[in-house]
């Protein structure tokens, strides 16, 4: 039907008036409001009408309630209904689904006779795209809850499904695993304890004070009986107190199995007492957690620890992505995941170098295998170039010096080779222990840092930053600690160095232009790809490094540095919280991106294709990037150019 031009010219005053009264439309100018109103339709839904069904309805328009009201609820498999929300006049329905490009995430049903304005999806998205305040309004009201949903979406929708690999690490609390508390008095004999263990069929007993049975003073395990008693020929009638380990390490009953596992893996203590309201209620063992599921990080961890040949580590290292994949699916946040990756990589390294020492004979001098860059910060993802070095104790004389050089040269060459076979690529910048420059005694290392700090050449500093994130990976950690002490001492004396570091940090442009448009090149390639590591994460890493050096904070992990800075009151809670969230979000995006590449059989990289991002992903990334600008202004105030 032909339509007269006049026909369109009529502005529906009541719709304009409606929009003018509600957030966030009230901020729009009249011309925009008129245009919006003309694109709307009005529908009526009698009381009890289902508007949206979670997981089924595709949302084609934003509903704005003109009159009436709706309830939002979810329904589980058993038909159990949980009411989430009531929404009345002026409220909207469906914004999140439209922005994220997903099906409805809630059931919506009218609880009164309801009239709605229907704003077409495309028009709404255009508004969100063009009006920053608009996008902000919806994203803000999505709240923590919704962001969590987004994380869940990220995990479930972006990773292909595999059956039978459900993990419970993040849902089960250790309190649920604890069995009956079995204990013995410290004054009882070793033999009595052993017969109790046999009777109860348990591998350990808690030991209590002989005068107070509620006072747990230690723990005795099968291994103690074996190594401290039988192997040592100890008298069985001695009190069990003699062989127990105490005081006992405890965890809270509400701790997640994941956290407990981390604790066990990092301390190598496999029996932990579980505490509830100040009372020990039992013991949780690594075995209990392993039973929870077959394919766990702990399982891999144990295999690594038990490996007797270096070549056996090759295949184990390749299993790490599979384990990490399970963790992401189970709901681990990026911070947990990188921590787990670091622990597993550390164990591979530890096992490898231990076996290597056995092959080559003991080192002539104490040494420390240093990890640099992302490894030093415990922020590796799947693509981890080797960044390592050897730091050894200062030789007493030339002979010792020569012996050390020969030994560590050979040691480094073999280690790097094995690491490559485990799947850790060589460092293109040759920051590896095989480079003679990075295999040096403590005094030389101190000299390097003094030099970088004392006479900062901006170009050289750029390459040196990753050294400032070193940590001990294996060996004599006291050497690394001494170097760190020296570094902190030097850095705090030289403001000019921190100035250069801060200025360098600010030279990375905030990649907000990434969002302006997704231009496709003439040849079809995307010129607008985001390097999430270099453009997104590095500014946060740099910021945390500058401030950590300025304030002598020993941590190397970015989130830990930020926390330490906040705890010591060097940054505000606001800066800390938003920085923490923004950083973790990007880490998560990066991990998922790389995990997917691994699953597709391609090499993981840091280049995120905008087309793979949902609208919400983009919004959240954009918000994360705006935090960078705030960090820059903090640095700018601290180290002004003028």
């Amino acid at each position: 039907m032909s339509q007269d031009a006049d026909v369109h010219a009529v502005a529906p005053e009541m719709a304009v008036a409606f929009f003018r009264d509600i957030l966030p439309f009230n901020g729009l100018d009249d011309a925009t409001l008129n245009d919006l109103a003309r694109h709307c339709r009005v529908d009526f839904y009698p009381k009890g009408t289902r508007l949206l069904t979670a997981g089924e309805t595709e949302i084609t328009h934003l509903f704005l309630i003109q009159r009436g009201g709706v309830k939002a609820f979810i329904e589980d498999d058993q038909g159990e209904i949980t009411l989430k929300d009531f929404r009345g006049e002026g409220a909207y329905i469906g914004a999140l689904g439209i922005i994220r490009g997903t099906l409805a995430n809630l059931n919506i049903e009218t609880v009164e006779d309801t009239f709605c304005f229907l704003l077409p999806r495309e028009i709404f998205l255009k508004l969100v795209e063009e009006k920053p305040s608009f996008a902000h309004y919806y994203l803000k009201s999505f709240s923590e809850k919704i962001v969590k949903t987004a994380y869940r979406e990220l995990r479930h929708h972006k990773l292909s499904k595999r059956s039978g690999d459900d993990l419970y690490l993040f849902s089960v609390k250790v309190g649920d695993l604890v069995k009956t508390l079995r204990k013995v008095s410290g004054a009882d004999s070793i033999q009595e304890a052993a017969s109790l263990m046999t009777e109860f069929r348990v591998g350990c007993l808690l030991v209590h004070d002989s005068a107070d049975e509620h006072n747990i003073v230690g723990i005795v395990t099968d291994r103690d009986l074996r190594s401290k008693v039988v192997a040592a020929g100890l008298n069985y009638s001695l009190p069990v107190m003699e062989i127990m380990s105490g005081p006992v390490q405890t965890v809270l009953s509400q701790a997640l199995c994941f956290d407990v596992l981390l604790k066990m893996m990092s301390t190598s203590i496999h029996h932990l007492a579980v505490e509830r309201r100040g009372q020990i209620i039992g013991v949780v063992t690594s075995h209990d957690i392993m039973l929870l599921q077959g394919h766990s990080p702990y399982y891999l961890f144990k295999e690594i620890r038990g490996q007797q040949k270096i070549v056996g580590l090759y295949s184990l290292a390749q299993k790490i992505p599979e384990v990490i994949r399970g963790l992401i699916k189970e709901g681990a946040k990026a911070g947990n995941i990188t921590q787990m990756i670091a622990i597993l990589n550390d164990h591979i390294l530890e096992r490898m170098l231990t076996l290597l020492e056995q092959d080559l004979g003991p080192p002539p001098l104490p040494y420390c295998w240093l990890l640099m860059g992302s490894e030093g910060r415990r922020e590796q993802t799947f693509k981890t170039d080797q960044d390592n070095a050897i730091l050894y104790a200062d030789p007493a004389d030339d002979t010792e010096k020569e012996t050390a050089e020969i030994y560590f040269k050979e040691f480094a060459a073999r280690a790097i080779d094995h690491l490559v076979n485990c799947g850790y690529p060589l460092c293109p910048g040759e920051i590896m222990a095989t480079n003679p420059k990075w295999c040096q005694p403590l005094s030389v290392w101190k000299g390097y840092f003094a030099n970088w700090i004392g006479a900062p050449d901006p170009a050289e500093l750029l390459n040196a930053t990753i050294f400032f994130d070193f940590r001990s990976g294996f060996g004599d950690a006291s050497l690394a600690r001494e170097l760190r002490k020296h570094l902190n001492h030097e850095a705090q004396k030289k403001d000019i160095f921190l100035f250069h570091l801060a200025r360098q940090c600010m030279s990375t442009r905030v990649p907000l232009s990434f969002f302006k448009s997704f231009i496709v090149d003439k040849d079809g390639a995307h010129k607008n790809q985001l390097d999430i590591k270099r453009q997104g994460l590095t500014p946060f890493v740099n910021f945390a490094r500058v401030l950590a050096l300025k304030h002598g904070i020993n941590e190397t992990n970015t989130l830990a540095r930020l926390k330490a800075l906040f705890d010591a009151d060097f940054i505000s809670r606001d800066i800390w919280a938003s920085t923490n969230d923004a950083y973790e979000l990007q880490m998560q995006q990066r991990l998922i991106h790389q995990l997917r590449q691994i699953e597709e059989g391609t090499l993981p990289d840091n280049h995120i294709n905008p087309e793979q991002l949902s609208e919400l992903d983009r919004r959240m990334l954009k918000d994360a990037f705006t935090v960078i600008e705030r960090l820059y202004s903090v640095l700018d105030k601290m180290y002004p150019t003028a």
Partner: protein
Amino acid sequence: MFDFFKPGSWFSNPAPQLQKNKEFFLEFDQGRPLAEYSFVVCDTELTGLNRKKDELISIGALRITDLQIDLSSMFHHFIQPRDLAHTEATLVHRITPEQLEGAEPIEEILPKFVEYIHGSLLVGHNLPLDMHFLNKAARKVMGGTLSNPGIDTMRMAQGYKRVRLGHYHEHNPREISYNLDDLGREYGLPVFKPHDALEDALQTAYLFLYFIKKFRKGGLVTLKDIFQSGRVGSF
């Protein structure tokens, strides 16, 4: 075109827009689901209520498709009456003589309106009154009448109340108001400015949506079903 030259056909043949519309509704199927029809809800404002003397001074109309009000193509025109002096109703309408003086005459507006309602069912509150004046004007300026079937929301309201209150319920029919604004308030609809053709058309549209969707729960799903409740006799 040929009709134009036929002797005697010049006055008796209606304008092509009316012809086209008539042909459309000759083969009109009333049995399809409601959502498949296009409705035009309209309201007119008049110089007065004298069926012989008074004229149209404004037409407001909007479309309902998919059983939703389409705000993108509303129709609203003032009409310059032949007798500008005779505008006693302007106080009610708040239409000023200046607005009417600047408006186009019915000869311009009506063909646009006929074009606008082509293929649609007409909906109005007390529609026969509007139809009387529309057809009077159509005969005069376009040589024919409108063929669009009509639905009167006032009749629907009566039907709805009958269903709700029951046939045998004792009540005094005079106590029930079928005034558009009163009905809107009674059913809790958004309320519009009365006595503006477009606003009244909107109010009527809301009422119409309310009825058909409430009726639909009672099993009235085709146009025929609805017709029984709000049908306006042939014009």
